Protein backbone atom coordinates (compact mmCIF):
# COMPACT_ATOMS: atom_id res chain seq x y z
CA UNK A 1 0.00 0.00 0.00
CA UNK A 2 2.75 2.41 1.01
CA UNK A 3 4.89 1.35 -1.93
CA UNK A 4 2.08 1.98 -4.39
CA UNK A 5 1.32 5.42 -2.92
CA UNK A 6 4.99 6.44 -3.11
CA UNK A 7 5.12 5.15 -6.69
CA UNK A 8 2.10 7.25 -7.61
CA UNK A 9 3.68 10.22 -5.83
CA UNK A 10 6.80 9.71 -7.90
CA UNK A 11 4.78 9.61 -11.13
CA UNK A 12 2.58 12.60 -10.30
CA UNK A 13 4.34 15.68 -11.71
CA UNK A 14 2.37 18.06 -9.49
CA UNK A 15 3.28 16.13 -6.36
CA UNK A 16 6.90 16.02 -7.52
CA UNK A 17 6.99 19.80 -7.98
CA UNK A 18 5.42 20.39 -4.58
CA UNK A 19 7.87 17.98 -2.98
CA UNK A 20 10.77 19.70 -4.74
CA UNK A 21 9.61 23.13 -3.53
CA UNK A 22 9.37 21.85 0.02
CA UNK A 23 12.75 20.15 -0.16
CA UNK A 24 14.43 23.29 -1.51
CA UNK A 25 12.94 25.31 1.35
CA UNK A 26 14.03 22.72 3.90
CA UNK A 27 17.53 22.68 2.42
CA UNK A 28 17.80 26.48 2.65
CA UNK A 29 16.57 26.52 6.27
CA UNK A 30 18.86 23.65 7.25
CA UNK A 31 21.87 25.22 5.55
CA UNK A 32 21.35 28.48 7.43
CA UNK A 33 20.88 26.62 10.70
CA UNK A 34 24.02 24.55 10.16
CA UNK A 35 25.99 27.67 9.21
CA UNK A 36 24.72 29.48 12.33
CA UNK A 37 25.74 26.55 14.52
CA UNK A 38 29.09 25.84 12.91
CA UNK A 39 30.22 29.44 12.42
CA UNK A 40 32.08 31.05 15.31
CA UNK A 41 30.14 34.21 16.12
CA UNK A 42 32.14 37.32 15.32
CA UNK A 43 30.83 39.36 18.28
CA UNK A 44 32.49 42.51 17.02
CA UNK A 45 30.79 43.33 13.74
CA UNK A 46 29.20 46.75 13.57
CA UNK A 47 26.73 47.43 10.76
CA UNK A 48 24.64 50.56 11.06
CA UNK A 49 23.69 51.53 7.47
CA UNK A 50 23.19 55.10 8.63
CA UNK A 51 21.30 54.28 11.83
CA UNK A 52 22.70 55.28 15.20
CA UNK A 53 23.74 51.73 16.08
CA UNK A 54 23.38 48.10 15.02
CA UNK A 55 20.40 47.19 17.20
CA UNK A 56 18.51 50.27 16.06
CA UNK A 57 19.20 49.31 12.45
CA UNK A 58 17.94 45.78 13.03
CA UNK A 59 14.77 46.87 14.81
CA UNK A 60 13.95 49.41 12.11
CA UNK A 61 14.73 47.19 9.13
CA UNK A 62 12.80 44.25 10.61
CA UNK A 63 9.82 46.53 11.21
CA UNK A 64 10.07 47.94 7.68
CA UNK A 65 10.19 44.38 6.34
CA UNK A 66 6.99 43.61 8.24
CA UNK A 67 5.36 46.71 6.74
CA UNK A 68 6.25 45.57 3.21
CA UNK A 69 5.07 42.04 4.05
CA UNK A 70 1.75 43.48 5.17
CA UNK A 71 1.44 45.21 1.79
CA UNK A 72 2.10 41.81 0.22
CA UNK A 73 -0.64 40.15 2.22
CA UNK A 74 -3.15 42.91 1.55
CA UNK A 75 -2.44 43.02 -2.18
CA UNK A 76 -2.62 39.21 -2.33
CA UNK A 77 -5.98 39.22 -0.55
CA UNK A 78 -7.20 41.87 -2.98
CA UNK A 79 -6.01 39.89 -6.01
CA UNK A 80 -7.71 36.76 -4.68
CA UNK A 81 -10.94 38.73 -4.17
CA UNK A 82 -10.83 38.36 -0.39
CA UNK A 83 -11.21 42.06 0.33
CA UNK A 84 -14.51 43.93 0.02
CA UNK A 85 -13.13 46.07 -2.78
CA UNK A 86 -13.74 46.37 -6.50
CA UNK A 87 -11.76 44.13 -8.87
CA UNK A 88 -8.00 44.33 -8.44
CA UNK A 89 -6.38 46.83 -10.83
CA UNK A 90 -3.87 45.54 -13.34
CA UNK A 91 -0.92 47.19 -11.60
CA UNK A 92 -1.58 45.45 -8.30
CA UNK A 93 0.47 42.40 -9.22
CA UNK A 94 3.52 44.60 -9.72
CA UNK A 95 2.95 46.33 -6.39
CA UNK A 96 2.66 42.89 -4.78
CA UNK A 97 5.95 41.73 -6.26
CA UNK A 98 7.75 45.00 -5.50
CA UNK A 99 6.69 44.93 -1.84
CA UNK A 100 7.87 41.33 -1.56
CA UNK A 101 11.23 42.12 -3.08
CA UNK A 102 11.67 45.13 -0.80
CA UNK A 103 10.75 43.07 2.28
CA UNK A 104 13.36 40.50 1.28
CA UNK A 105 16.06 43.11 0.56
CA UNK A 106 15.64 44.99 3.86
CA UNK A 107 15.64 41.71 5.79
CA UNK A 108 19.09 40.73 4.46
CA UNK A 109 21.31 43.05 6.56
CA UNK A 110 19.42 41.92 9.66
CA UNK A 111 19.81 38.25 8.79
CA UNK A 112 23.46 38.72 7.93
CA UNK A 113 24.22 40.37 11.25
CA UNK A 114 22.27 37.69 13.13
CA UNK A 115 24.05 34.82 11.40
CA UNK A 116 27.54 36.27 11.26
CA UNK A 117 27.75 37.95 14.63
CA UNK A 118 25.42 35.86 16.78
CA UNK A 119 24.96 32.52 15.07
CA UNK A 120 22.40 29.93 16.13
CA UNK A 121 21.77 30.47 19.85
CA UNK A 122 19.60 28.72 22.42
CA UNK A 123 20.22 30.67 25.62
CA UNK A 124 16.47 31.03 26.23
CA UNK A 125 13.22 29.81 24.70
CA UNK A 126 12.77 33.13 22.92
CA UNK A 127 16.28 33.13 21.48
CA UNK A 128 15.94 29.50 20.38
CA UNK A 129 12.57 30.22 18.78
CA UNK A 130 14.04 33.26 17.02
CA UNK A 131 17.02 31.28 15.73
CA UNK A 132 14.81 28.50 14.37
CA UNK A 133 12.21 30.85 12.90
CA UNK A 134 14.87 33.00 11.26
CA UNK A 135 16.18 29.98 9.37
CA UNK A 136 12.67 28.71 8.61
CA UNK A 137 11.67 32.10 7.16
CA UNK A 138 14.25 31.97 4.39
CA UNK A 139 13.33 28.34 3.75
CA UNK A 140 9.66 29.27 3.48
CA UNK A 141 10.58 32.21 1.25
CA UNK A 142 12.63 29.95 -1.04
CA UNK A 143 9.70 27.53 -1.24
CA UNK A 144 7.39 30.39 -2.15
CA UNK A 145 9.72 31.54 -4.94
CA UNK A 146 9.85 27.99 -6.34
CA UNK A 147 6.06 27.72 -6.15
CA UNK A 148 5.62 31.10 -7.89
CA UNK A 149 7.83 29.95 -10.74
CA UNK A 150 6.36 26.45 -11.03
CA UNK A 151 3.52 26.08 -13.52
CA UNK A 152 0.47 23.86 -13.06
CA UNK A 153 0.53 23.64 -9.29
CA UNK A 154 -2.72 23.50 -7.33
CA UNK A 155 -4.28 26.93 -6.88
CA UNK A 156 -3.90 26.76 -3.11
CA UNK A 157 -0.14 26.18 -3.21
CA UNK A 158 0.88 29.80 -3.70
CA UNK A 159 -1.38 31.38 -1.05
CA UNK A 160 -0.36 28.70 1.43
CA UNK A 161 3.34 29.29 0.73
CA UNK A 162 2.85 33.06 0.94
CA UNK A 163 0.86 32.87 4.16
CA UNK A 164 3.47 30.56 5.67
CA UNK A 165 6.29 32.99 4.79
CA UNK A 166 4.35 35.92 6.21
CA UNK A 167 3.43 34.08 9.43
CA UNK A 168 7.01 32.98 10.05
CA UNK A 169 8.32 36.49 9.34
CA UNK A 170 5.86 37.95 11.86
CA UNK A 171 6.99 35.37 14.44
CA UNK A 172 10.65 36.26 13.76
CA UNK A 173 9.78 39.92 14.35
CA UNK A 174 7.75 39.15 17.49
CA UNK A 175 10.66 37.25 19.03
CA UNK A 176 13.17 40.04 18.31
CA UNK A 177 11.99 43.50 17.27
CA UNK A 178 8.77 43.53 19.27
CA UNK A 179 10.52 41.95 22.25
CA UNK A 180 13.20 44.64 22.11
CA UNK A 181 10.69 47.45 21.70
CA UNK A 182 8.61 46.19 24.61
CA UNK A 183 11.71 46.12 26.83
CA UNK A 184 13.55 49.22 25.73
CA UNK A 185 11.13 51.27 23.66
CA UNK A 186 11.27 52.03 19.95
CA UNK A 187 14.78 53.31 19.19
CA UNK A 188 15.10 56.59 17.34
CA UNK A 189 16.90 56.06 14.04
Amino acid at each position, binding site marked *: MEASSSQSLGRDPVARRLLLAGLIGAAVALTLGIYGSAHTPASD*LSITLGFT*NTITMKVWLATIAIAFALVQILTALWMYGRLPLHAAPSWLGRVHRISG*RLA*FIVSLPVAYHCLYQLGF*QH*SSARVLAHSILGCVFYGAFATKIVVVRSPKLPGAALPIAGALSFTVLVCVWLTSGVWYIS*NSGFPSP
Partner: protein
Amino acid sequence: MLRVIDRGLALISGLAALLVLLLLFAGPGLIGAKKSGNAGYGSSSGSGSSSAPAYSGGSSTSAGQKVFTSAGCATCHTLKAAGTTGTVGPNLDQLRPTAAAVSSIVQSGGGAMPSFAGKLSSAQISAVAQYVAGVAGR
Protein backbone atom coordinates in the same frame (compact mmCIF):
# COMPACT_ATOMS: atom_id res chain seq x y z
CA MET B 1 7.23 52.62 -14.38
CA LEU B 2 6.26 49.83 -11.96
CA ARG B 3 7.62 47.28 -14.41
CA VAL B 4 11.02 49.00 -14.42
CA ILE B 5 11.08 49.18 -10.60
CA ASP B 6 10.02 45.53 -10.36
CA ARG B 7 12.72 44.35 -12.74
CA GLY B 8 15.35 46.53 -11.07
CA LEU B 9 14.44 45.19 -7.66
CA ALA B 10 14.49 41.62 -8.97
CA LEU B 11 18.08 42.17 -10.02
CA ILE B 12 18.99 43.95 -6.79
CA SER B 13 17.42 41.29 -4.57
CA GLY B 14 19.26 38.52 -6.42
CA LEU B 15 22.57 40.35 -6.19
CA ALA B 16 21.96 41.26 -2.53
CA ALA B 17 21.25 37.64 -1.64
CA LEU B 18 24.40 36.59 -3.46
CA LEU B 19 26.43 39.26 -1.68
CA VAL B 20 25.13 38.13 1.71
CA LEU B 21 26.10 34.54 0.92
CA LEU B 22 29.59 35.69 -0.06
CA LEU B 23 29.90 37.80 3.09
CA LEU B 24 28.81 34.92 5.29
CA PHE B 25 31.72 32.85 4.09
CA ALA B 26 34.30 35.49 3.17
CA GLY B 27 33.61 37.84 6.08
CA PRO B 28 32.65 41.52 6.17
CA GLY B 29 36.17 42.57 5.17
CA LEU B 30 35.14 41.74 1.61
CA ILE B 31 33.25 45.02 1.40
CA GLY B 32 35.34 46.84 3.97
CA ALA B 33 32.56 46.71 6.59
CA LYS B 34 33.57 48.08 9.93
CA LYS B 35 34.48 45.72 12.73
CA SER B 36 34.50 47.39 16.10
CA GLY B 37 37.82 45.85 17.06
CA ASN B 38 36.54 44.89 20.48
CA ALA B 39 37.41 41.55 21.99
CA GLY B 40 33.75 40.69 22.09
CA TYR B 41 30.97 40.22 24.57
CA GLY B 42 32.00 39.12 28.00
CA SER B 43 35.44 40.61 27.69
CA SER B 44 36.72 43.75 29.34
CA SER B 45 39.51 44.30 26.86
CA GLY B 46 37.63 46.61 24.53
CA SER B 47 39.44 49.00 22.25
CA GLY B 48 39.37 51.99 24.50
CA SER B 49 35.63 52.28 24.73
CA SER B 50 35.86 52.34 28.51
CA SER B 51 37.67 54.82 30.63
CA ALA B 52 35.67 54.05 33.75
CA PRO B 53 37.26 54.48 37.10
CA ALA B 54 38.38 51.32 38.85
CA TYR B 55 36.05 49.53 41.19
CA SER B 56 36.27 50.93 44.67
CA GLY B 57 34.15 48.24 46.34
CA GLY B 58 31.46 48.56 48.94
CA SER B 59 28.22 50.07 47.62
CA SER B 60 25.83 48.42 45.20
CA THR B 61 26.51 51.23 42.72
CA SER B 62 30.18 50.36 42.73
CA ALA B 63 29.37 46.68 42.42
CA GLY B 64 27.11 47.43 39.47
CA GLN B 65 29.75 49.62 37.91
CA LYS B 66 32.32 46.88 38.31
CA VAL B 67 30.06 44.41 36.55
CA PHE B 68 29.33 46.97 33.85
CA THR B 69 32.98 47.47 33.05
CA SER B 70 34.21 43.91 33.59
CA ALA B 71 31.42 42.01 31.80
CA GLY B 72 31.94 43.82 28.52
CA CYS B 73 28.92 46.15 28.62
CA ALA B 74 31.35 49.02 28.11
CA THR B 75 32.52 47.71 24.76
CA CYS B 76 29.07 48.18 23.23
CA HIS B 77 27.22 50.83 25.24
CA THR B 78 27.67 54.51 25.90
CA LEU B 79 27.13 55.35 29.57
CA LYS B 80 28.50 58.71 30.65
CA ALA B 81 28.61 57.81 34.35
CA ALA B 82 30.86 54.86 33.57
CA GLY B 83 32.92 56.82 31.07
CA THR B 84 32.08 54.49 28.20
CA THR B 85 31.44 55.36 24.60
CA GLY B 86 30.59 52.07 22.87
CA THR B 87 28.40 52.38 19.80
CA VAL B 88 27.53 48.78 18.94
CA GLY B 89 24.49 48.76 21.23
CA PRO B 90 22.04 51.48 22.24
CA ASN B 91 23.24 54.60 24.03
CA LEU B 92 22.07 53.93 27.59
CA ASP B 93 22.06 57.61 28.48
CA GLN B 94 19.52 58.20 25.72
CA LEU B 95 17.58 55.00 26.35
CA ARG B 96 17.40 55.38 30.15
CA PRO B 97 16.10 51.83 30.68
CA THR B 98 14.46 50.66 33.89
CA ALA B 99 16.26 48.18 36.12
CA ALA B 100 13.73 45.53 35.11
CA ALA B 101 14.42 46.15 31.41
CA VAL B 102 18.19 45.94 31.93
CA SER B 103 17.84 42.80 34.02
CA SER B 104 15.63 41.18 31.39
CA ILE B 105 17.85 41.91 28.42
CA VAL B 106 21.05 40.98 30.28
CA GLN B 107 19.52 37.62 31.21
CA SER B 108 17.88 36.77 27.92
CA GLY B 109 19.82 38.74 25.33
CA GLY B 110 18.13 40.58 22.51
CA GLY B 111 18.88 41.98 19.08
CA ALA B 112 22.65 41.80 18.72
CA MET B 113 23.19 41.38 22.46
CA PRO B 114 23.83 37.88 23.74
CA SER B 115 22.51 36.48 27.00
CA PHE B 116 24.75 36.93 30.00
CA ALA B 117 22.79 34.48 32.15
CA GLY B 118 25.60 31.93 32.09
CA LYS B 119 28.32 34.49 32.69
CA LEU B 120 26.89 36.62 35.49
CA SER B 121 25.24 35.59 38.73
CA SER B 122 21.77 36.83 39.69
CA ALA B 123 23.36 39.22 42.16
CA GLN B 124 25.67 40.63 39.49
CA ILE B 125 22.79 41.07 37.04
CA SER B 126 20.73 42.77 39.71
CA ALA B 127 23.64 45.05 40.60
CA VAL B 128 24.35 46.10 37.04
CA ALA B 129 20.63 46.62 36.37
CA GLN B 130 20.26 48.88 39.40
CA TYR B 131 23.44 50.71 38.47
CA VAL B 132 22.47 51.37 34.84
CA ALA B 133 18.92 52.40 35.75
CA GLY B 134 20.30 54.69 38.42
CA VAL B 135 22.95 56.51 36.41
CA ALA B 136 21.74 56.43 32.78
CA GLY B 137 21.06 59.89 31.46
CA ARG B 138 22.64 61.61 34.43
